[in-house]
């Protein structure tokens, strides 16, 4: 390991460019004021849901998650919500922000209308446990029911199973799912009928049905042909709009519908 050279001993960098003033040093981080209106619920205290307003001063690129942290860390420690990765990959913090399902960690405050109160509430259709935390068990139950794992009939190869790049691309979109439930809990069918498998389970079934290495597509199609399966979908596109991973959820559902039909023909 060599010690690093100091600026004095080393040659001056030759390739230098002019930077606009606002990018180089100086300036100030813009701040702005918001009202975050959070739908609170704590059955240990009361059975009622109450909207509570928080006036906050936030910085340039702060996200809704930052605002929630500011409340929790500086004002009211009892405000409860799940989060972990803070950059849109773990699926912990789907919530309804201004009436739309999004990840709090991926929603920049400045992209919302900060003149009006920003509303934040738990996702719909799953039992609320406390504030923004819902019971995810029914959601994962549907996921488990579509047998979300590779099933093969033949004997195991010694090396890898072969799969062409095209075959691999066939289900690429649905491998991106982080099980955040933004789609399922934005679906009006799911709101009224909690038995419906919901988009996320279908997305994950799609991921296996269209995987050339899998032999259990028929079984999954049969499961989704159920009265609580794909036919409940009314193609409202809420799910596709909600998906933070940009998955074409509605299209995946219609591909599964097609597969059921063509199998039955």
């Amino acid at each position, binding site marked *: *390991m*060599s*010690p*690093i*050279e100091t*600026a004095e001993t*080393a040659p*001056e*960098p*030759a*390739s*230098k460019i002019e*930077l606009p003033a606002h990018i*180089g040093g100086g*300036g100030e*981080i813009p701040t702005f004021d918001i009202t975050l209106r959070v739908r609170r619920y704590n059955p*240990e205290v009361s059975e009622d849901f109450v909207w509570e307003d928080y006036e906050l001063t936030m910085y340039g*690129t702060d996200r809704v998650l930052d605002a929630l942290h500011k409340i*929790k*860390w*500086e004002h*009211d*420690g*009892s405000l*409860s919500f799940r*989060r*972990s*990765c*803070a*950059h*849109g*990959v*773990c*699926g*912990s913090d789907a919530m309804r922000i201004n009436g739309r399902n999004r990840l709090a960690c991926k929603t*920049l405050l*400045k992209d919302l209308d900060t003149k009006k109160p920003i509303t934040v509430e738990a996702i719909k259709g799953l039992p609320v*446990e*406390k504030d923004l935390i819902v019971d995810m068990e029914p959601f*994962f139950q549907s996921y*488990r029911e579509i*047998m*979300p*794992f*590779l099933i093969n009939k033949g004997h195991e190869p010694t*090396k*890898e*199973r*072969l*799969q*062409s*790049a095209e075959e*691999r691309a066939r*289900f*690429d979109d649905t*491998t*991106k*799912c*982080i099980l955040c439930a933004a789609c399922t809990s934005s679906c009006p069918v799911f709101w009224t009928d909690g038995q419906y498998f919901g988009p996320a389970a279908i997305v994950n079934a799609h991921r296996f049905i269209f*995987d050339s290495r899998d032999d259990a597509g028929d079984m999954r199609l049969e499961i989704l042909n159920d009265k609580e399966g794909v036919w409940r979908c009314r193609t409202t596109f809420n799910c596709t709009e909600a998906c933070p991973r940009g998955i074409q959820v509605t299209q995946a559902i219609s591909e599964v519908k097609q597969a059921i039909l063509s199998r039955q023909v």
Partner: protein
Amino acid sequence: MQVHKYDVVIVGAGGAGMRAAIESGQRARTAVLTKLYPTRSHTGAAQGGMCAALANVEEDNWEWHTFDTVKGGDYLVDQDAAEIMAKEAINAVLDLEKMGLPFNRTPEGRIDQRRFGGHTRDHGKAPVRRACYAADRTGHMILQTLYQNCVKHNVEFYNEYYVLDMLMVDEEVTVDGVTRIQKRVAGVVSYDLASGELHVFQAKSIIFATGGAGKVFKTTSNAHTLTGDGMGIAFRRGIPLEDMEFFQFHPTGLAGLGILLSEAARGEGAILRNSEGERFMERYAPTIKDLAPRDIVARSMANEVREGRGCGPNKDYVLLDLTHLEPAHIDAKLPDITEFARTYLGVEPYTEPVPVFPTAHYAMGGIPTNVKAEVLQDSDNVIPGLYAAGEVACVSVHGSNRLGTNSLLDINVFGKRAGIAAAEYSLTADFVDLPADPEAYTVELLNHVRTSDGGEKVALIRKELQDTMDANMQVFRTAESLNKVLSDIASFEERYQRITVQDKGKRFNLDLLEAVELGFLLELAKVMTVAALHREESRGGHFREDFPERDDENFMKHSMAYKVAEGANAEHTAGIRLGTKPVVFTRYEPMVRKY
């Protein structure tokens, strides 16, 4: 309080924990306790890849991989462990493929492989394609695939159960006339987030797979939940922590946020610039410039900021400039980077440089284990039935600096080993009796946190801890800066005694748990700093400005930090005694680490 009994209890459901569960669950009655839903674990954030010398696209072999791992770790790697990892890598990847992982493919339909820093052909001759990958979501696909297979094998999960303590008993054993204390493990104590109830799990084997501790730093690529709980619990129960001074700082974290931008950006031609628009790496590494090893680039960036050439309102970051690259090229090769920069900083990388700064990325140190994943109670003796795997553990395959793509490998190889070993041990062993009042320590801990009322805020202490760690324990360290951290921590610890937690309820009391997590962070920050203070040399991820050279004569050894029992008068710093453990050499003599 409820008591559960299992053959094997696994703490943590990231890559390491679930890989272990798949093995253990098929052999013995197994429960997995995890503070997060399994699919929320931070393994899912990994992007780049998982390496194995499959030789699918060009000549490669495990011996070259072993060499690269040893050299990358600046020779502090235990070479027997590195060799096992490199050999078993091939099956580790094939196992995942058979479980369903959708790897990217070659035109022939085989698993595709790509280059990654530090992985070379024939001992450094040229870069080699060794990293298997699934787009820029390799960790996500590993986590999903392992969870899917846990569902397939009906693994029993206890989700949102926080393990807060491990139950240990000391036994006197006499072997060959020598009497010594042998630690034995009886179970763990956990806190159910939903109900606030304590659950004791008695088990014959216990595997810790709780991941890293990046939240001791302010700028980090790690999740909010990576608070080093497993390391903290082990340390409090008298288990040493190995090589904690070694933490990897990745050069390109998004400024202020720490979110990782993959190394691939500089590979594709992105340039680092300071506030004067200079390509400053020309100053520090005139030939390879921006493609110098991670630690050197990170230090150069920090030096620019320190010398006043940082950018932004606080002059505290530098810029990653992609503006000279074709937008189409950026879209094809670096989609994640552009998305993160746009989403989180509102910066358009086609036309504007992206603010970046080194981000705390990976804990090389952790709970010491041997190659069977058995936990060591000191340099020589294992604790029967106790295992650790993944980032929480120190085998040591990463030495003083981990190579990219070696961690996803580590969690699979040693997760599997831990799962098999723990299950097999449990089939022959008996339960160790639980101590009387097994939950007493945890009840006391929680009571203190819940009832203490001095008005100190957890979030504020945590922020100040992270600030001092970033300022004084990051890429530049001196005796002075480290002593500053220790005196800061002493005052934080004192304030920690007077914290007030506002939420007094039982349901989903994350306020309470953040306070408990801060306790672990304080403990670990102290261990890291004391170990860094004792290592008066520079090696891999640890750089001492006052001792800038590697010193093999005095420091070619692992450090082992022990918590000193109250009132003990052994020589120690801040309640920590530092021992050492020899490095295992098999094939390779230490050389200068030069690229």
